[in-house]
């Protein structure tokens, strides 16, 4: 049986609001979420995240996702060094071509957000680079819910262009509707139908909210474990330490 994961739920200052949303999300058919926090707010929210995760320890899978909002390459490198071992998923929304190329090449970054500001960065060559470096694109469809007529048409057109290229280049992708309130919540089947608007086949959209995120999460959690050495290599048994007499 498929398990569905909502790949973006933004962390807020009010924990109650977030826990209410998580309750609703679990009721509509998701079995996990990526609790997303911007890097600049990570310090402020760290304890709250721990509280939220401990509340749902047994029955709902919550992964921590950091959205890096820094634009300087050296600073991003420092951030990655400091947080890679502590969080499950790292994403970034590059706004310039050189930054996008850097993000594609850095294997510590998992997800690249497709936003209104960076549609034009996703050329064929960039998408090929994404595929070669195993990056995942994220299409956040929340903007489609909040825009009307001309504006919605424009956004949809651009999203469809990137989606068509991504499909042609076999790049993995997430489709999400990041909910801010109860009225933004969409169950997995609704997300699949909205995803079809972008021109993706139904099965691809289904995978994008189930198999793709869970595989990435599994790999990253494996990497974070103590026994991990290399992809495919792990310590099976550690030698027992002899106590000195």
């Amino acid at each position, binding site marked *: 049986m498929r398990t569905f994961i909502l790949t973006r739920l933004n962390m807020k200052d009010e924990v109650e609001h977030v826990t209410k949303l998580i309750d609703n999300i679990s009721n509509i058919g998701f079995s996990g979420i990526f609790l997303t926090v911007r890097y600049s707010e990570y310090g402020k929210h760290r304890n709250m995240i721990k509280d939220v995760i401990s509340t749902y320890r047994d029955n709902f899978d919550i992964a921590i996702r950091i959205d890096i909002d820094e634009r300087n390459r050296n600073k991003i490198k420092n951030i990655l060094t400091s947080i890679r071992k502590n969080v499950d998923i790292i994403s970034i929304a590059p706004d310039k071509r050189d930054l996008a190329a850097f993000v594609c090449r850095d294997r510590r970054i998992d997800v690249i957000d497709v936003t209104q500001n960076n549609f034009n960065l996703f050329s064929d060559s960039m998408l090929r680079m994404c595929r070669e470096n195993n990056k995942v694109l994220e299409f956040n469809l929340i903007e489609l819910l909040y825009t009307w007529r001309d504006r919605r048409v424009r956004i949809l057109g651009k999203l469809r262009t990137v989606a068509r290229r991504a499909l042609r280049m076999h790049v993995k992708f997430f489709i999400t509707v990041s909910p801010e309130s109860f009225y933004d919540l969409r169950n997995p089947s*609704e997300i699949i*139908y909205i995803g079809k608007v972008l021109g993706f086949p139904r099965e691809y959209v289904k995978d994008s909210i189930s198999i793709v995120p869970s595989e990435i999460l599994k790999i990253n959690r494996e990497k974070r474990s103590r026994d991990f050495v290399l992809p495919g290599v792990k310590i099976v048994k550690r030698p027992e330490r002899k106590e000195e007499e």
Partner: protein
Amino acid sequence: MIKEKKRYVAFRAYYETESMNSLNSTDIIKWISRFFIEIFGEINAAEANITLIEYNEHKKMGIVRIALSQLDNFRTAMALIRKYRGNDARIEIIGVSGTIKKCREKFILGKKKKQEEEESQISS
């Protein structure tokens, strides 16, 4: 002449009850069909032939009849609904069925579920 296939869609409306008066069946069908036209255009809407079969204002649940060929488009349009006259609102599709009777029993009244639960209780 081949009769066009149709489906019955059970839905639930969510809207802010504090700032809005409760919506009656006319409001609901106008809301749904206008939104469908906005997304998929008049030709598809004409083919869809959206008809409201029933709507319960207290439960905020209802049944809509739609042409099978436009069912996917209808579901997409309903998933994209986010506002009603500037207020927070949305429509959730509960289920789809081939007959009104089954649609009503399964999704609106929830009879089948109750029966199954009772049977399982008796058998256990």
